[in-house]
């Protein structure tokens, strides 16, 4: 590499970020180099602060900088309904709808046979004591992918014996989707989940 050593180090660190290739890493590194010192320090501090202050909520396993996350500490939430999501990003997407007023449980991943991601690697064990604490319905809001469906079936088989109602969010055509290009599985789901209008 023809870069000065500190610059080469920055490029190589940025390359380790997801979705960042060598060219993007170089572009970002040169951008940081041209920034005023204060702005570069702000970026460095923000990265350190995230590492130092963000932890998992002991109740729902959501990322938080508080003792208990905002959702779990909100007393207006309906604690009889729990929505299970794979990632914090999914929780944020559900919250943006403004329609859901129950509590959450974040699994921090999905079961994956092909990557050998087993139940003990996710926040599944932590789910059961919470269910026993007055939850009547569990909504499984996981992606309609191979991994999402594997996790859904696994959780349903473990939760139903506890006597709790287990439901799954509807699968079907996305808004703006194209019926002609939808696959069999999507169309079958769309037909199964149809409703009277």
């Amino acid at each position, binding site marked *: 590499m023809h870069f000065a050593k500190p610059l080469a180090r920055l490029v190589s660190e940025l390359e380790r970020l997801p*979705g960042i290739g060598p060219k993007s890493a170089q572009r970002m590194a040169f951008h940081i180099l041209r920034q005023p010192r204060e702005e570069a320090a702000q970026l460095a501090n923000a990265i350190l602060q995230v590492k130092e202050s963000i932890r998992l909520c002991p109740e729902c396993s959501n990322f938080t900088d508080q003792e208990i996350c905002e959702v779990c500490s909100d007393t207006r939430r309906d604690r009889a309904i729990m929505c299970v999501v794979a990632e914090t990003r999914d929780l944020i997407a559900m919250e943006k709808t403004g329609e859901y007023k129950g509590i959450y449980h974040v699994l921090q991943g999905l079961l994956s*046979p*092909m990557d050998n991601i*087993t139940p003990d690697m996710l926040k599944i064990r932590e789910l059961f004591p919470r269910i026993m604490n007055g939850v009547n319905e569990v909504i499984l809001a996981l992606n309609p*992918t*191979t991994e999402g469906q594997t996790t859904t*079936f696994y959780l349903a088989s473990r939760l139903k014996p506890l006597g709790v109602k287990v439901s799954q969010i509807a699968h079907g055509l996305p808004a703006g989707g194209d019926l002609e290009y939808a696959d*069999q*599985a999507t169309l079958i789901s769309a037909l199964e989940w149809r409703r009277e209008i």
Partner: protein
Amino acid sequence: MPTYTTDAIVLGRRNLGEHDRILTLLTRDYGKLNAVAKGARKGNSKLSGATEPFTQLKLMLATGRSLDIISQCEISNSHPALRSDIGRLTRSSYLCDLLDCLIHERDETSIKAIYDLSVAALSLLEKESVWKDSPLHGFEFRLLTILGYMPVLNHCVLCDMELSDQMVAFSASQGGVLCPQHASAASDHFGISADTLQTLQDFARVGTEKLCNLNPGPQSILHINRVLREFMKYHSERTIKSIEFLESIRAMGN
């Protein structure tokens, strides 16, 4: 950019950048290859449903500098029944993982036979079987035969003594069964019952339509699962990650 068409099964996928995916495909004409599905992770992408594992596709691919790019795609069979329970999902995932581990990239040797076998096995997994693993084990035996790894099951690998109706040993490193006198010659050997040997020989013999009716006893099931697990691990160049997950699902009774 030159293009070509082929039938393919999606073996796996990984994310690329913000919106794209790299698919690992088993194609009927060109062997195993990786190709980019551009925009497949966007919510309303026409490709998103086509990137799920075990989906059968008709593809037009454009030759790229490092990776080929999917330019057109039609789903021939998304195998919806395979996504209806955790047992079928896990067994189909293992089947795809196994193909990914055992087939070399762009190796066209016997690829049409392997492709047709894989399509038939996925269809068989969608049906009801007396023993849930019989379509999978039938697939494994036939794949091993095509690849030239079929274990010796009728006679001792070392002394050629014909074996049937007796307790024998199996060794993955020796490539098959061993008579009681030669069992200690392999450090990785383990005992299998006469019933297990009979069922293993049946697997290698019976047609696809009879596979679903095979119903061995509980002890034989454990032995057969172990024989194939050890044999596949021995012949795979990398770890077959889905084996452990499959074992845990079997242990749950799925």
